[in-house]
């Protein structure tokens, strides 16, 4: 009877997770390419090797890494500053907090489209606004010229995801008891000492959680690239997810794309594993 009760859930998991995963593993080891016909001979590690040999794939890995780290670092700093600023009650705080979190509810594709319109020449407002603060006329192609195209992508991601950091860190900050700050004050600690020796150590687990979530998410960066640059100019803004999307769903080199996806997943798993271990370290020590 108990097996009967869990059977639907098991069937759903098998059908929607286990089977596709197993099927994709098989696809990664066979020739599965639209242009090469519907025969699927075993090709061993060829699909994985094809990816490693492709300089676009290798470049996309490095780009994904530095995009993720840069974006998450900026979001962490801005999120922390915002959380600290919003910690104490003040007039209009609720309205501001609502405004801050709105980007979180917008689809990343829409965010990319919005930034595309914002920076696109000759209609976008970006150059006009930049001309207000910069002497002389500004004529930058923010979605084409290096390094501006990277800055635009980072800005778009930071605009959307800083509120995530802000919300989580604000919750963490709110949970720190006031008594600790009072004790520090009695011991003669200045505010910056209280921040370094009270706030940061107690906030660290929360920071690690937020950073872990965001890093894993940022490593999959796709939507903003898709709607803002389409990976261009050339392949200069290809992230690994975009590269894999193109191999799989534009060129239908499904074997190579699936092989690449497995490689990428294994890399992400190692990184996530390392981050989670760091996360659990204080708990294990306690």
């Amino acid at each position: 009877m108990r097996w009967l009760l869990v059977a639907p859930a098991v069937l759903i998991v098998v059908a929607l997770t286990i089977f596709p995963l197993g099927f994709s593993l098989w696809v990664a080891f066979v020739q599965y390419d639209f242009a090469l016909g519907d025969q699927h001979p075993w090709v061993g590690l060829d699909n994985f090797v094809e990816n490693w040999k492709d300089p676009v794939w290798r470049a996309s890995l490095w780009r994904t890494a530095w995009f993720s780290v840069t974006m998450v670092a900026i979001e962490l700093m801005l999120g922390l500053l915002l959380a600290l600023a919003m910690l104490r009650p003040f007039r209009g705080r609720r309205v501001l907090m609502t405004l801050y979190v709105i980007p979180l509810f917008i689809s990343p594709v829409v965010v990319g489209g919005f930034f595309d319109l914002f920076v696109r020449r000759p209609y976008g407002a970006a150059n006009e606004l930049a001309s207000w603060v910069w002497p002389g006329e500004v004529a930058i192609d923010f979605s084409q010229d290096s390094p501006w195209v990277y800055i635009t992508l980072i800005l778009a991601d930071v605009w959307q995801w800083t509120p995530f950091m802000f919300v989580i860190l604000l919750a963490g900050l709110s949970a720190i008891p006031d008594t600790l700050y009072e004790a520090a004050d009695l011991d003669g600690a200045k505010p910056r000492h209280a921040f370094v020796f009270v706030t940061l150590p107690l906030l660290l687990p929360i920071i690690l959680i937020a950073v872990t979530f965001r890093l894993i998410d940022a490593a999959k960066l796709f939507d903003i690239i898709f709607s803002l640059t389409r990976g261009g100019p050339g392949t200069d803004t290809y992230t690994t997810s975009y590269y894999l999307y193109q191999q799989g769903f534009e060129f239908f080199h499904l074997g190579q794309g699936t092989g690449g996806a497995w490689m990428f997943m294994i890399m992400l798993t190692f990184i996530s594993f390392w981050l989670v271990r760091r996360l659990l370290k204080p708990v294990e020590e306690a």
Partner: protein
Amino acid sequence: MSDDVHHDPDVSQEDYMSGLRMARRDFLIKSGLAAAAIAAAPTWLKTEQAAAAIEASTGGAAVRDPIATTAVNAAKQYKGLSMGRINEAGPQALDDKNFSGPLWEKLTGIKTNLTEAPFAQIRTKIIAEDLAKSGALDSVELSPAWLPDFADQEVLIPIDSLIRKYKAQATLADLHPLYRGLARYKGKTWGFFDDGDVWALYYRKDIFGNGKLKSAYKAKFKRDLRVPRTWDEFNQVAQFITDQLAPKVYGTGMGRALGNPGNQFYFFQQFRANGGRFFNPKTMKAEINNAIAVKTMNQILLQNKASPPGVEKLDFISGWGLWLQGKTAMIMAWPPTGRISENILQRDKAFATLPKSQIVGKTGYARVPGQNGEHAGAFIKGVMATSENQDAAYLYNQWATSPSISLQRVMLPYTLRDPYRISHYRSPAYKKLWKGADKYLETLCEAANDAVLDLSMSGAGDYANALDRAMTSMYAGKDVKSALDEAAREWDSITNKLGVAKQRASYANFLKYPGATGKNTVRKLGQAVKC
């Protein structure tokens, strides 16, 4: 008019007011009924094109088109069926939504269920459907460049036996020779050609006739200002106009965005007009990084320099927007450019994609510099091998592309289908669409006589994409030679992956098409059509 004007002194004020009330009520009722009737009537019913199409499909012997009539009569047995279609999102899909779809349903009782997708994604959706085999698509639009892959992988069905069965052989003879072979591959016919996407040069007659500009040009270059005939001349004239008139008017401005429409079209055209070839036909090594290719790319970069800022991200619809606002003096583009310039398409409210033209009556037509215009993109109507309604899908395709129905479709006051039949180019009805339409049709016909084709062979989509990406990297400042070397390496890698022998055969097949190179255009093969 005021009520006083109609006041009859013999009628009492009360009677008059009563009569007026009646008249107003009557007017309101009649107006309401008329408004309701107009609102209720489908858009297609209101057009003269629809009336002509119905007449050609069902009328008497004097007016009917036997190819369309045969298709309609045979398709009636499938009444109640829902047929899956895919077409390019936006203006192209308006044909399905506002004309062909509802008209086909009225004539046969077959509904059409339309999927819209951007041009490049039509290919991916067709492939995805082929892999999934869901039966969602029956009749599809595909670019001739994708046909070899689709035929090799049996995504489509060959339709030769159906053409014989439904007596449609005559439909092929009326096609311009450039288009006649495009739906054929390895000795079989895989669909009906349906869109004459040949590029021409559109220029502003008022700018080229401007006395001050002409004098300044002559003073600077010691020759008359004229519509350019070579790419070097084009770049010189474009830059001159930009120097003289920008930011009000720029010399040129063509869509250079990645994948929209795809920069490979520009390269394909100019590269071959300059004497280039894509591969060494024996070794299949890519030749898109030789001296001709470098010269071609440098010419293209000079065009960007003479264009409005941001041209590198300009899609083709935005390029048209600039042109219609009078911001550019010359563009090399698809045939709808001539129609939108005269507000032929924008007169229908369904065509809201583009602004009204501010250059009506000012557009001149010419063949593109180098004379070999690109036949870029285009569409063939095919039938999916996974379709459970292949016969019905075929009959729809036969009807929609028949000479009389296709003529109405290329004249619709919306959508982007372009003339491709000899009968289209010679149509008196089309020539009356606007003053100068006869010259427009003549230019398109002549452009087709000299046009070169998109690369149509196995892996064409991959080759095009690699080149498109490389070109955008050059727009962003990457060294031309190294970017072309990289693209050539990518082409070689694609060739090796698909198999050199297979690709050699596929390329050899492509080279047989009229227009595969600048040396075997329709005109050079002695098949030019006089329109």
